[in-house]
């Protein structure tokens, strides 16, 4: 089975890696995008430093909104385990990514054992008709909306009404919500950057801060992408900064606009794209005159790629450490169907040793 290609020609992995390395060495403005485990992230960032590359998640926009909440405003958050055990009111804020629907269903199917009432009520904030994760046991979430107003506007209205201020358009079912909050011991708001604008995330934190003046409440961060949040954490410890950091000047600089890799590609700033994602073979961007090195789980070369190297999927082909929104931390997972396919980290390090004399530290 072929595992590496230079253009459309089959090649030895060593040769493909060497070719990728030469492209990287001669690139004026390389960019990396990845959707990978912790070790893959570590290897990619170590290579980015050497290559002077900017790096981002493969689907960076939603993550960037979540990151901005932390870098610009801060937040009150709660662990998923505490949410399950303590939340007597659960508020779903905007549409949540599908990967978290299981957790929401589970919250609906259980009661908080550390809360005196041992019961849980559900609300959902957002425009009428938004999709809501299915709740177990035929339970219903009470909708809090201002018609078709945006999530941010609805949250602003909710916050104002909670403070007893007049609002132009009242929030539907507000009295039910107010009653539930008055009785609640630990309401938890589930949020994600998936569908929520930065302003909505900020407004939600404002509401949570207001609630905490007299009682308790917090927010459960459900990342738009689990690998993406894992990479954000690894990037923070390795460089001090989250994703959308670049090494163009030889040291890490965080700039969520300048180092938005999708933007850099679209604007023609980048001349080489290293894309690392076992699960997505085709880059989303329109075809540009930019060299692509694709590391992906594939049996054929990626169309238009200068180099394609097959990699395994973390937790499927090989053991891995990944972010788990179920525990709110990093988790070690075993390969479900161990295979010979190399990990992303292995191939990145192979490219690094071809491109640069010294072995990388990660």
């Amino acid at each position, binding site marked *: 089975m072929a595992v590496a290609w230079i253009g459309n020609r089959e090649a030895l992995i060593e040769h493909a890696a060497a070719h990728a390395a030469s492209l990287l060495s001669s690139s004026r403005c390389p960019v990396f995008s990845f959707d990978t485990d*912790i*070790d893959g992230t*570590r290897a990619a*960032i*170590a290579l980015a*430093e050497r290559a002077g590359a900017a790096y981002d998640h493969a689907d960076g926009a939603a993550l960037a909104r979540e990151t901005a909440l*932390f*870098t*610009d405003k*801060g*937040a*009150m*958050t*709660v*662990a998923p*385990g*505490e949410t*399950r*055990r*303590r939340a007597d009111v659960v508020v779903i804020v905007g549409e949540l990514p599908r990967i978290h629907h299981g957790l929401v269903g*589970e919250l609906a199917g*259980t009661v908080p*054992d*550390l809360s*005196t009432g041992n019961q849980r009520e559900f609300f959902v904030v957002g425009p009428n008709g938004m999709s809501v994760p299915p709740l177990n046991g035929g339970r219903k979430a009470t909708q809090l909306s201002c018609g078709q107003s945006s999530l941010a506007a609805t949250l602003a209205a909710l916050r104002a009404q909670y403070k007893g201020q007049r609002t132009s358009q009242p929030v539907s079912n507000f009295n039910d919500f107010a009653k539930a909050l008055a009785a609640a*011991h*630990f309401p938890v708001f589930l949020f994600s950057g998936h569908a929520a604008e930065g302003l909505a995330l900020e407004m939600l934190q404002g509401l949570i801060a207001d609630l905490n003046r007299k*009682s*308790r409440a*917090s927010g459960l961060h459900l990342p738009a992408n689990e690998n993406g949040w894992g990479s*954000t*954490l690894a990037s*923070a*410890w*390795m*460089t*001090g*900064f*989250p994703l959308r950091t670049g090494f163009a*000047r*030889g*040291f*890490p*600089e*965080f700039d969520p606009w300048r180092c938005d890799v999708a933007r850099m590609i679209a604007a023609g700033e980048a001349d080489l794209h290293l894309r690392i994602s076992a699960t997505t073979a085709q880059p989303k961007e329109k075809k540009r005159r930019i060299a692509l090195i694709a590391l992906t789980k594939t049996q054929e070369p990626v169309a238009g790629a200068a180099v394609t190297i097959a990699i395994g999927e973390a937790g499927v082909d090989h*053991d891995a*450490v990944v972010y*788990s929104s*179920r*525990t*709110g*931390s*990093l*988790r*070690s997972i075993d390969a479900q169907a161990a295979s010979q396919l190399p990990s992303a*980290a292995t191939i990145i390090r192979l490219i690094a040793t071809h491109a640069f004399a*010294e072995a*990388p*530290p*990660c």
Partner: protein
Amino acid sequence: MLTKIASGDIIDPVNGRLGKGDLWIKDDKIVPAPAGGAADRIIEASGCIVMAGAIDIHSHIGGGNVNTARLLLPEQHAAHQVRPATTPLSNAGWSTFQTGCLYAKMGFTTVVEPAMSPGAALHTHLELADIPIIDKATLAILGNDDFLLSMIRDDAPRTMIEDYVAWTVASTRALGVKVINAGAAAAFKENVRTFSLDDVVPSYGVSSRKIVKTLQAAVDSLGLPHPLHVHCNNLGSPGSADTAAATIAAADGLPLHLAHLQFYGYGTEGKRGFSSAAARLAELVNATPEVTIDIGQVMFGQTVTVSSDVMRQFSARGSAHPKKTVIHDGDGNGGGIVPYSYGKDFYGTMQWAIGLELFLLIDDPWRVFFTTDHPNGAPFTAYPALFELLMSREARTEMTAGLSSSALALSTLAAIDREYTFEEIAIMTRAAPAKLLGLTDRGHLGAGATADIAIYRRDRSIAKMLGRAAYVFKDGDLVVQDGEIIHYRWGKALRLKPPVDKAMVRRLEDYHQQRYGLSLDWFNFPDSAIAREQPFGEVPCRT
């Protein structure tokens, strides 16, 4: 390889070796002078002092809360130098890589991260594994977790509690146990806003004192070398000296370590109701031999407070500078990140003076430990300046010139003549930490010790001398020369491995299934998950 460190002033209090002489290293160990005496490498150390590598027992260098602080404050740790050839990412501000390099340059070779949330053990160890050169260790946090509080409430047998503590230490690969504002994080979840030693956690009916005493006894009975590491209640409040005094009294004959005592050195005198109680606390420490403390010295400037004392951090939100914070309710403690700038005003001066008073008024350098509670009192990069303040009365007098005189008037600092000697520094930062942590292979320069060695060229400026080591050896590798890193290597995380009781594992499996809907597997990890060769080094328990 045989290395001779020639003609240095050796300061090795453990082995009673003080004065000019040679020190020999074979591979990674210190050895007696060999009969033949032919060294493969000679390090000329005349004009230098030679000490064991320093050990920091309390510095927040990695883990969930530290990393959240990085996320919160990207503007505060920009790098400004390009990547050096041999040490990738070491100029990345506040990165794991920079942490290892900066510590090594000062001659520190072992550093303890004192606040590992058990649920984030894998994350913490992954961060620590990316800290180059030095060895690391962690203390696992207990005392706000439902499992322990329920056992105490239900009068569980002592052995069952010990089994749980042993399982936590073993499964998280910790070197000890820390309790942080015992019971307060649990109480805060039930909307309690202040919490003292004899306050009771709602729903459990268990007092903070009871939690501390239970854990102290379990740690002692299990033979964990490091005594229970306590972050007391009421950190930072005027009058917190009473809480610290009550906690010291509660040690009651069993070993107990109190962290960052400076943050509890506050009385309520003066027109601002905020004064130094350092002399009183120092006297209590001097009179209580089973108690050890570290300082948590405040130095002036911008920093960020990172603490698993979530109740305290929540109440400190108003003082955030810049105005942004993260407050996290975790499975046990959670934590809070509050950026803060220590000014040379009344309060900043008071805190600075209290830390120094404690350092200088506690007589026994074996029981007082050198920390800034990095980054809470100051970043660890302030250590050279702090050494100078301890070793030079003149430096202290010079420093006080720009500070609040009304604060200094409420402190005894000006009246203290004491200057630490190099021998006392060697005890406080080498010998005593090794003893306190149960690390018999380091903290001294005797034959058989690990070759962790710091060599400093004498200079009129103590800060300059101790800030840039002339040479540093880690496990016999020469890693620093003339204050610069010349070689990357990967240290270990030192851990205990107490035996784990199978019935406790079954009990915990049931508990996690029932309460979290998850198997215990979600929280366990193999050593291979760290992705480094031999990421851990085992330290034996007391027998």
